[in-house]
């Protein structure tokens, strides 16, 4: 069956009335008729009424009705009286259906221009708001923890125990892997330099101090931010979506005490323990590399014993406590403030990890500067 391109023709029936004659096949695959052409013609002719004549129409699909709808909306906007004759019955009822409710006009929101969006004042204000929000959350958390010490908080021990298990023993495998490798990396890094001075044995000092003060705790915290922080955000975000947080609130229970406190406490207990574990395995990783360089295990261990100082150990441990709170707060806050829906939960998890990593790096730098000044 041969097809004809869709055509329209605007005829002046009388000075006031124009007729729009539609012909051809208004179907997919045909060069579409351009409404802008018709609009230009209509503006030029400026009739008071427009009659659409479908007498010579061939086959048609949604393209026809879409065209007619544009036509109808234009007429209504310009105050032209719209009428139809000999349109196929179903096309005319589809048009009627489409025009029953006038199109919604979205209230224009002033979208800030690109420059305004990059405005440093705005960015700084937003960042400050974010920090203020986190501090407020930390304050609420402190109140909840205080109530816990008074025995007034609705925190369940069984939740705490479960979260401890999730955050601790379940993370052993990945923490083992990362810390052995980090210990080896530190050893290799030092070995090359120290060899030039014939001081290979000091690899042990480098690994020990590096792991204890810095890498053990930081790597563990980074892994836990990705693992546990994101999990907290996803759990709480899903609970928000599921109206579970509403249910808790309306039971007269504070979500802070019921949901956040056990998570924070679990991380606060588990992160230092995992850090000690990571320190041990890191030193072990260093031993493997040292062995490859001809240092015996005994030499390595005795050098470790010399270099060991509880100060280094406690520096790392004190950092781990701070990091635990930061990871848990970033995760829980993103989760509690999550919107509703699966996309929002995903965003909450991403936000939790990104925020936690920023907090970790900034806090680590700050603590290092502080300890440097205090000569610890």
């Amino acid at each position, binding site marked *: 069956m041969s097809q004809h391109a869709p055509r329209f023709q605007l005829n002046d029936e009388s000075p006031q009335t124009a007729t729009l004659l539609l012909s051809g096949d208004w179907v997919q695959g045909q060069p579409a008729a351009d409404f802008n052409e018709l609009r230009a013609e209509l503006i030029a002719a400026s009739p008071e009424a427009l009659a659409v004549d479908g007498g010579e129409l061939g086959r048609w699909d949604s393209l026809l009705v879409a065209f007619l709808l544009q036509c109808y909306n234009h007429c209504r906007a310009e105050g032209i009286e719209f009428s139809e004759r000999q349109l196929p019955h179903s096309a005319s009822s589809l048009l009627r259906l489409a025009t029953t409710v006038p199109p919604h006009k979205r209230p224009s929101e002033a979208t800030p221009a690109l420059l305004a969006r990059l405005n440093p004042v705005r960015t700084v204000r937003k960042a400050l708001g974010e920090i203020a929000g986190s501090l407020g959350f930390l304050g609420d958390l402190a109140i909840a923890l205080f109530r816990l010490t008074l025995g007034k908080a609705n925190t369940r021990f069984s939740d705490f125990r479960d979260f401890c298990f999730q955050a601790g023993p379940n993370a052993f495998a990945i923490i083992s892997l990362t810390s052995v490798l980090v210990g080896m990396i530190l050893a290799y890094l030092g070995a090359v330099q120290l060899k030039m001075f014939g001081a290979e044995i000091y690899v042990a000092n480098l690994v020990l101090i590096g792991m204890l003060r810095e890498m053990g705790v930081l790597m563990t915290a980074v892994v836990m931010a990705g693992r546990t922080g994101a999990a907290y955000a996803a759990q709480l975000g899903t609970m928000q979506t599921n109206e579970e947080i509403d*249910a808790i609130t309306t*039971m007269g229970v504070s979500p802070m005490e019921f949901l956040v406190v056990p998570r924070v406490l679990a991380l606060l207990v588990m992160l230092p323990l995992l850090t000690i574990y990571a320190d041990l395995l890191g030193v072990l990783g260093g031993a493997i590399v040292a062995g490859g360089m001809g240092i015996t295990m005994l030499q390595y261990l005795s050098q470790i014993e010399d270099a060991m100082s509880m100060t280094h150990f406690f520096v790392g441990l004190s950092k781990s406590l701070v990091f635990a709170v930061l990871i848990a707060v970033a995760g829980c806050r993103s989760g509690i403030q999550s919107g509703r829906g699966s996309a929002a939960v995903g965003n909450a998890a991403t936000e939790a990890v990104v925020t936690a990593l920023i907090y970790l790096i900034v806090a680590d730098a700050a603590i290092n500067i502080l300890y440097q000044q205090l000569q610890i």
Partner: protein
Amino acid sequence: MATATDVNTGETGTPVAAEAHIEVRDMTMAYGARVIQNHLSFQVNRGDIFVIMGGSGCGKSTLLKHMLGLIAPARGDILYSGQSFTRADDASRDAMRQSWGITYQSGGLFSAMTLGENVSLPLQLYTNYNKTEIAEVVSYKLSLVGLGGYESYFPSEVSGGMRKRAALSRAIALDPDILFFDEPSAGLDPISSRLLDELIVQLKESIGATVVMVTHELPSIFGIANNSVYLDANTKTMIAYGDPKQLRDHSDQAVVRQFLAREAAAPGETEQ
């Protein structure tokens, strides 16, 4: 105490001379600058089954969230038994909340807990029952909604209708004064939703509670409700208040009559 049968309805369909259990006074609800509903004033009498109706997007669930104190009203007040909820401090709010039972649109069951643990949570929090007593009460409350023996199932392991009933069971755990429902029969088949309606009426009568329900299921509205408010999205306020059966036949608002008679509105009156 007044019961459902004591509620007299006047000719206008407005209940008269009964004890107000919940009172909403000239309340405005807004998200930031966007006003959802204005000038809401109505009262729910003790023993009523009160329905909040209206087309989609008119703010029914938002009204419920205001009544539950999850969102603070932009203006106006909500009173429970004559006591302001909006102006109450946290401790008295929590005290008021203990006499409520709520089932949420999606159930609001804690997905990390079994059905039994869900029902036992309010009992653990607010009663002095010991472990054995709690287990007994939990099994009794679950049996009330036909879920005896499902204590150890997780919400994800049971059907949608069972989740709703489990949520109802948690809501009645503390024998509440007021039961709130957000679209209880949404997503249920006609038989399940009818059974749920009957369950609501039976439970309400046996524990003597007031029921507040958001729904647009006409069978539920006519089957069990004796008072209602209709929120209109276009005028952003309530345009009808009273017994839904009266409103269907005698409301002076065409939209309300059409809504209750399930008729399509004439073009131009359609909600946008």
